[in-house]
C-alpha cells in the first residue's frame, strides 16, 4: 500500500522541509493537496511500505509489518526518537496520542512517553497468549478493556460487551460490539453520544436509535461520532460547527460571507439573504447521511472537526473543517457537503483506506490500478433524498 497525507504539517509529520531553516514558506505548514509519504528504508536499504498509520496533533506513527513489525514516528520528535523506534520490533499494532505512543505486541502492550528519553515504557501490560482473547488486540482495545490517551491508561470493559472495535473522541468513547451494537459514553454537551440529549454518561450506554441495525465500524472525532452499517450506510451525530456532519452549518456560511465581504472591501453589515434554510449546530441523535447515492461507504475516519470516507468504488470523500488543507481539495476552506478528493481519480489511484489525525488525513492507496467507472461529481444530497 502507498500512503498519501494532506493537512496540518507544521511539524513535518507528512512531508519534511527541504530546507528547515527557511521558515518563510508557510506553504509547507499545511498541505492542501495529497502528498505521498516516503516508505521506510531499513538498514539493508530495502524499502518497506507502511501497513498502518496513526496520527496525533504533532506526530505520525507508521507501522511496517513487513519489516519485522517496526514502528517509525515522524513529526515533533527529538533526535533520539527519529526514525525507527528500536524497541518496537515485533509490534503488531500501534496507537498514538499527543503525549504517548502505545505499542501492542503478541505478549504485551506498552505505553511510551514521547517526551521523555527513557529506555523503558512508562506503562506495560502483559497479554495471556494462551487465551482466545489474545487475538483481540485492536488498539485502543486490549483484552479486558481499552487503553486511553493518557494515564491512567487501562480502563476495563465488561466481557459481556464483546467489544470488537473502539474509538476515542475528544472527550467521549464509542464502542462497537461483535453483534453490531453501538455504545457511547463520556461528555455529551455537543450531542456526540447520540442519546438525544446533552448530558454526560459515565458508563457505556447503547445508542438506541441504531438498535436493530447491525453496524460494522465506528469512528470518533473531537466532538462527533460516525458509524457505518453492514449495508454501507453512514450515520453521523455530534457537533456540526464546521460541517463535520455534512449537515448545513450556519457558522460556516457566516464565515464565508464575511470573507467575501472583506475581499470586496466592505464591513460585514449585510443582512442574511438565505432562504428558509435549516442549519444544524448539534445533532443529538444519529442521522442517516448519504455521502454519495452512487455507492456504499467502506471505511470512515474522523479528525478533530472533519470526516473522511472511502467508498467501495475506491473514491475518497471529505467534509468538515478544512483550514489546514485536511480536506485535500487544494484549498483551505471548510465544507459542509462531502466532496470527492479529485487528486486520486486524476492519478488513477484506488483509495482503500483512510486514517485521520486531528488536523490531517492519510489515505491508503492500492498498488494496482484499475478503478470503477467514472462517476460525475454533481453536488450530493443527503439523508437519502
Amino acid at each position, binding site marked *: 500500500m502507498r500512503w498519501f497525507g494532506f493537512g496540518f504539517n*507544521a*511539524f513535518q509529520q507528512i512531508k519534511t522541509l527541504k530546507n528547515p531553516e527557511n*521558515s*518563510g*514558506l*508557510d506553504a509547507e*505548514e*499545511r498541505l492542501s493537496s495529497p502528498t505521498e509519504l516516503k516508505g521506510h528504508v531499513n538498514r539493508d536499504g530495502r524499502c518497506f511500505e507502511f501497513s498502518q498509520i496513526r496520527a496525533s*496533533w*504533532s*506526530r505520525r506513527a507508521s507501522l511496517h509489518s513487513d519489516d519485522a513489525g517496526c514502528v517509525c514516528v515522524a513529526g*515533533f520528535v527529538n533526535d533520539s526518537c527519529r526514525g525507527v523506534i528500536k524497541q518496537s520490533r515485533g509490534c503488531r499494532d500501534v496507537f498514538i496520542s*499527543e*503525549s504517548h505512543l502505545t505499542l501492542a505486541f503478541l505478549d504485551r502492550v506498552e505505553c511510551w512517553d514521547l*517526551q521523555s528519553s527513557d529506555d523503558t515504557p512508562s506503562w506495560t501490560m502483559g497479554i495471556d497468549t494462551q487465551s482466545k482473547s489474545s487475538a483481540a488486540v485492536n488498539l485502543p482495545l486490549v483484552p479486558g478493556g481499552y487503553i486511553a490517551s493518557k494515564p491512567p491508561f487501562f480502563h476495563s470493559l465488561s466481557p459481556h460487551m464483546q467489544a470488537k472495535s473502539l474509538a476515542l473522541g*475528544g*472527550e467521549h468513547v464509542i464502542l462497537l460490539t461483535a453483534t453490531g451494537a453501538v455504545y457511547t459514553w463520556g*461528555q455529551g*454537551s455537543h450531542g456526540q453520544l447520540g442519546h438525544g440529549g446533552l448530558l454526560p454518561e459515565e458508563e457505556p450506554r447503547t445508542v438506541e436509535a441504531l438498535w436493530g441495525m447491525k453496524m460494522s465500524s465506528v469512528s470518533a472525532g*473531537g*466532538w462527533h461520532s460516525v458509524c457505518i452499517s453492514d449495508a454501507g450506510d453512514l450515520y453521523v451525530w455530534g457537533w456540526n460547527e464546521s460541517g463535520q456532519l455534512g449537515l448545513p452549518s450556519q457558522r460556516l456560511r457566516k464565515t464565508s460571507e464575511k470573507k467575501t465581504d*472583506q475581499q470586496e*472591501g466592505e*464591513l460585514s*453589515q449585510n*443582512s*442574511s439573504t438565505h432562504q428558509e434554510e435549516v442549519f444544524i449546530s448539534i445533532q443529538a441523535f444519529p442521522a442517516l447521511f448519504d455521502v454519495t447515492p452512487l455507492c456504499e461507504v467502506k471505511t470512515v475516519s474522523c479528525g*478533530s472537526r472533519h470526516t473522511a470516507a472511502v467508498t467501495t468504488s475506491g473514491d475518497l470523500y471529505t467534509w468538515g473543517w478544512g*483550514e489546514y488543507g485536511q480536506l485535500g481539495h487544494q484549498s483551505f476552506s471548510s465544507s459542509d457537503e462531502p466532496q470527492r478528493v479529485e487528486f486520486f481519480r486524476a492519478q488513477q489511484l484506488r483509495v482503500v483506506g483512510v486514517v485521520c489525525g486531528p*488536523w490531517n488525513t492519510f489515505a491508503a492507496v492500492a498498488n494496482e490500478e484499475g478503478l470503477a467507472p467514472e462517476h460525475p461529481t454533481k453536488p450530493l444530497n443527503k439523508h437519502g433524498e
Partner: protein
Amino acid sequence: MSSLGSKILSTLPADEEQFPLQFSDKVEPSVVEVLRRCRKQLYGNAACASRRLNAQIILDVSWERLNTGTWRHVDKEWRRVYSYGCLFKVAALCRENPSQQEILEAVRTCDMGLLMGAAIMDDILQVLVRILQNEISETSKDKEKSVEVVAKKLKTEGPRSPSIREEKAVPRIKCPSLESFSTNYLLPLKPVILEGIIDHWPALNNHPWSIEYLRSVAGFRTVPVEVGSRYTDESWSQTLLTVNEFIDRYILDEISPDGGTSRGYLAQHQLFDQIPELKEDIRIPDYCCLGEGDEDDITINAWFGPAGTVSPLHQDPQQNFLAQVVGSKYIRLFSPEDTDKLYPHQSQLLHNTSQVEVENPNAELFPEFSKAPYLECVLEPGDVLFIPVKHWHYVRSLQVSFSVSFWWS
C-alpha cells in the same frame, strides 16, 4: 514596519529573551514549540503569511481546548495560550501598513482574547486595544455616522407600560443611611428602590450614556449578544457583534434582518472589565460594603437592549443592586418563600428559572401562580433596585434601556 507596528512592538519586551512563555505542563511541548516560533518571528523578519499562520495555529489549538469540558473546568493555562495567540495575531496584522480592515480585525482579535482568554503580560491586550482604537481613521468613523444619520427612530415598542398598583409597589426610599438600609431591607431581605444614590455617576452627568457616546467609546468593540425573545426559548442563541452592529441591528429601526421579530440583548456581560473607559462612568454603591466579600468579588454586569427585552422569572444566588441608567424597565418580584407557586424548571440547567410566563401565565398548567404574592415597579433612570438574594425577579424593558447590576454577598 509601519508606525503602528512600531508602537505595538514598543509595548512588548525588548527582545526574545525577555519575552516570557511560561506554562504548566498542562500545555503540551508541541504547542509551546509553536509559541516559540511565534515569538521568534515577532522579533525577526518572517513573511506576514507565516506569522499569521503560526498565530492561527495557536488560536485554533487553544480554541479546541476551551471547547473541551465545561467552561468552569477549562484550565486557565489554555486561556492564557489563547491570549498569546491573539497577541501574535495582532502583531502580525499590524506590522506592515495595515489597512483599516486589518486594524478593525486586530481590535476584534483583542476583544476575543479579553472575552475568552486570560490576562497575560500585564493585560497587554487592553494596552493594545487602546492603541488600535486611536488608529481607527476618521473615514471609518464617518462611515458609521452616515448609517446613523439615515437611521432615525429608536425602536419603540411597549405601549404596554403597566400602571403600578400602590399596594403592590416596591417601596422607595431616598438616600437611606447604611444602617437603616441594613436594618430595614438587607437583613430582613426586603426589596426596595433606592433613589438618589447614583445621581453622582458620570453616566448620568458629564458623560451621559447616549447612543452616540457609546459608539464613540466602544463602537468597534466586539461584545456577546443574546438573540431571541427569551433565554428559555428553543431559538435563543448567542452571537458576537461590534457595538455599532448591535446598535444598528437591534436598537435602531434601521436594519432589521428578519422583519424585526427577533430581539438582541447585550445581557449579563462584564462589559466594564472589557472596556475600562465605561467603568469610569459608574461607581460601586456604598451599600455593598455591608456585604462580606471584597470589592474584587463584586460582579458588575451591563444590560443594554431595545424595548421589549425580557428576562424570564428567575433567582440569583447573590444580592443584587440593579441600577437604571437609560430608559425604563418593568420589574416584578416574588419572595423565595413562595417558590412552590412558581414552578421552577426541573432540569439542572434551568432550576433557577420559573416555567411561568409572568405577563401571560398559563393558568391551566400553573394554577398556583395567580396566588403568589408579588411586588412590582417601573424602574426609571437614577433608580437602584435592591433585589435580595434568591428573590425571584422578572424584567421587561419598556424603552431602549441600559442597566448596570452589582452582584455581591
